[in-house]
């Protein structure tokens, strides 16, 4: 198989660190980004995630994984969290967290779902909902490095209001002609919406993603059914499975 030789990632002991909220950004009615000051943060690569651990007053602990949305170049660690109904962790992170509140996290974790400018392109990013978070870390890193790697982001959201980082993505694409941002709104489309008005399907991928003969590096992130559908469409279109990296959300809909 044509394995992508990953750069060696130095292994560090994985320990729980104290994270302090420095800024809370409302992204959509159900999604917030937390900018965190993490004690002793060793730095990360775009696409990696962290484990968040909350401890109740009675000692009960709940743990979930969240992708890092900030670029490797930033000192604050950004997590973009969607509120999951009856979730154990996300309602606290979305609704309760205030400035200077603290909780525990460990990371960065996972060197597989990672892209850096040094790995080259073309780069094809495909996300649904809050699955955009790790791909945003890649795009932000790409921009910080002033890289011209040909890139496309295909982003599926229920409505324009549910699309995370909308203005930042538009501005990013405006600044860099080598980046194309394509939206697909699945439930409600604003008047004058010129993007796709359906779920991501095979013909949409054929039209937006780089063709297989250009051997794009493909990253897919979103709910499990979305990731499974998109991966099979990409294989049907002739993309090499080893070039497609996926990150599925857990059964609760929280990034896992």
């Amino acid at each position, binding site marked *: *198989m044509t*394995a992508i*030789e*990953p*750069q*060696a*990632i*130095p*292994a560090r002991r*994985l320990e729980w660190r104290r994270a302090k909220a420095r800024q809370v950004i409302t992204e959509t009615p159900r999604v917030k980004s937390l900018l965190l000051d993490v004690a002793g943060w060793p730095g990360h690569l775009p696409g990696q*995630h962290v*484990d968040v651990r909350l401890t109740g007053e009675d000692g009960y602990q709940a743990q979930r*994984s969240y992708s890092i949305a900030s670029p490797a170049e930033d000192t604050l660690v950004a997590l973009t969290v969607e509120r999951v109904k009856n979730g154990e962790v996300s309602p606290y992170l979305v609704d309760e967290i205030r400035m200077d509140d603290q909780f525990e996290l*460990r*990371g960065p*974790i*996972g*060197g*597989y*779902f990672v892209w850096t400018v040094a790995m080259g392109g073309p780069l094809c990013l495909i996300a649904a909902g809050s699955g955009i978070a790790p791909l945003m870390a890649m795009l932000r890193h790409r921009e910080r490095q002033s890289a011209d790697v040909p890139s496309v982001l295909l982003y599926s959201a229920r409505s324009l209001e549910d699309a995370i980082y909308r203005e930042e993505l538009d501005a990013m694409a405006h600044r860099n002609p080598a980046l194309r941002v394509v939206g697909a709104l699945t439930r409600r489309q604003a008047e004058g919406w010129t993007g796709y008005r359906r779920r991501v399907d095979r013909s949409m991928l054929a039209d937006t993603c780089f063709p297989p003969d250009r051997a794009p590096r493909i990253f897919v992130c979103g709910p*499990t059914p979305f990731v499974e559908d998109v991966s099979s469409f990409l294989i049907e279109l002739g993309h090499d*499975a*080893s070039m497609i*990296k*996926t*990150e*599925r*959300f*857990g*059964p609760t809909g929280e990034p*896992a």
Partner: protein
Amino acid sequence: MTDDDLAFALDGNAAAGALRELFAAEITTAQIECDTCGSVGAVGSLRFYAAPMGVVLRCNNCAGLVLRAVRTPHGRWLEMRGAHCMRFAPA
């Protein structure tokens, strides 16, 4: 472990936190060969079945059991009967 419930299937990459407690080197980019069908892929690309007790990783190609890591009150168990070998990227 209910490792056959497809609804719980994630990517091996999501098991990185739990496996980092056992492996010193970055595990998700290591290439692992399935002993059942011989296919080779990154640990991060395997099918990950999360359970409260631990981690089950299955082959993406044949669904064969590749790796199990379980936490018990008596210690941590790592079973890799289904993995022929692993190759870690040079440091």
